[in-house]
């Protein structure tokens, strides 16, 4: 007896989405198999603190150009309990919308002072923070004139399920036409960073982005890492 879960939506105007989104509903996992679905990724904690400051290639190097921002928030499960010691991976475009990825053939300018890749861990209260350059929008589909709004990619390992998501910016004119944003519906607001003023001297502003990891699976990162 099959029980069905979500039907994943196909992002409008996105070819890859049409070609790769499963047409069948996801299957629910029977209780006896559920625990086995959550990967535990050991050995991922060799993180240099400087990796959270994406505004420079390395400490002491020149600041990348564009608007330097702080992003901070709390990682929680569905019950509001903090998820501590989780690995947060971040990648975003530079101020022109270009990535340093070797498959980005957009021709947008590359900033020699901006790698666009960072890592950090949530602390014992589930809080995290990192610093980056506010990404530019980019024209993802020149053939139909569709832009991707400015966004920061985040990947989290260590909660009750694996999560890859994106943080968007408030009031961006490209937000509403983004195909993935359309699939999110009203819940899109949860993926918009809330702007706040930073009193520290060398950042332009901050964005609060609390991340709630779904799923009822156990969290295997509850032990403190020494």
């Amino acid at each position, binding site marked *: *007896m*099959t029980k069905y*879960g*979500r039907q*994943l*939506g196909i*992002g409008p105007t996105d*070819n890859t*989405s049409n*070609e*790769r*989104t*499963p*047409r*069948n509903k*996801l*299957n*629910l*996992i*029977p209780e*006896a*198999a*559920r625990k*086995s*679905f959550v*990967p*535990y*990724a*050991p*050995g991922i904690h060799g993180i240099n603190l400087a990796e959270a400051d994406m505004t420079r290639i390395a400490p002491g190097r020149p600041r990348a150009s564009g608007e330097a921002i702080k992003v901070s928030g709390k990682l*929680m499960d*569905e*019950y*509001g309990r903090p998820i501590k010691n989780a690995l947060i*991976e971040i*990648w975003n475009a530079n101020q022109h919308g270009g*990535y340093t*990825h070797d*498959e*980005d053939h957009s021709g947008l300018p590359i900033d020699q002072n901006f790698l666009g890749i960072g890592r950090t861990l949530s602390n014992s209260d589930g809080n995290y923070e990192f610093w980056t350059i506010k990404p530019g929008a980019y024209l993802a589909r020149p053939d139909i004139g569709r832009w991707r709004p400015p966004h920061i*990619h985040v*990947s989290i390992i260590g909660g009750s399920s*694996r*999560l*890859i*998501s*994106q943080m968007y910016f408030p009031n961006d004119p490209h937000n509403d036409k983004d195909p993935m944003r359309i699939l*999110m*519906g009203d*819940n899109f607001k*949860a*993926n918009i960073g809330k702007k706040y003023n930073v009193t520290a001297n060398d950042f332009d502003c901050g964005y609060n982005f609390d991340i*709630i990891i*779904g*799923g*009822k*699976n156990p969290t*295997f*990162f509850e*032990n403190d890492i020494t």
Partner: protein
Amino acid sequence: MTHSNKEINRLTPTNEDTVGPYYPPSLCENNSMDMTSIRSGIVFKPLGEKITIKGCVKDIDGKLSNGCLLEFWQPNSQGVYYRADTESHEMVDPWFTGYTRHRTKDGNFSLTTIKPGTADGRAPNITVTIFSDGIMRVVTQLFFADEKSNRDDPLLLSIPEELRERLMINKISDHKYEIEIIMAGKNETPFFDDLLS
């Protein structure tokens, strides 16, 4: 992707979003896809049968899905998962974590691993999580076609019989296996919902 939250006192999970085309491969601890050598240059090796699984991820048109981020997760040959809560388990294999990930450039992959044992009443299986441009995360478990324990596996029994073969890793010769994962359409691989389950 949103899902309705029936219990009022629970928070709505952050929407999953596409990984996009530019996941940095350098974030994968090693892009080598060899789970049998977590520490290179030593004589210690994990217990069990070393196998290689050649596979690919295809789209609705049968074309390879380039740029997918693939994550693999499995128990060791004794059927024990290496987790925070099992680290001191006597059957944990210190030379095998059971976890690796890889960004496939063209949609093909070749996973070198140890054949998983039977864990917690389950047939031997490998959990695969797939992230790709244009889609949300999908997750499934792959089984070995020649395992008798498949007929009692609760996950396999939970889906229609005709779909079970789509989750089978087939043996092609000694220690060599293959699997085709089809994201959408005809012969679509069954995927599972670990948020609502």
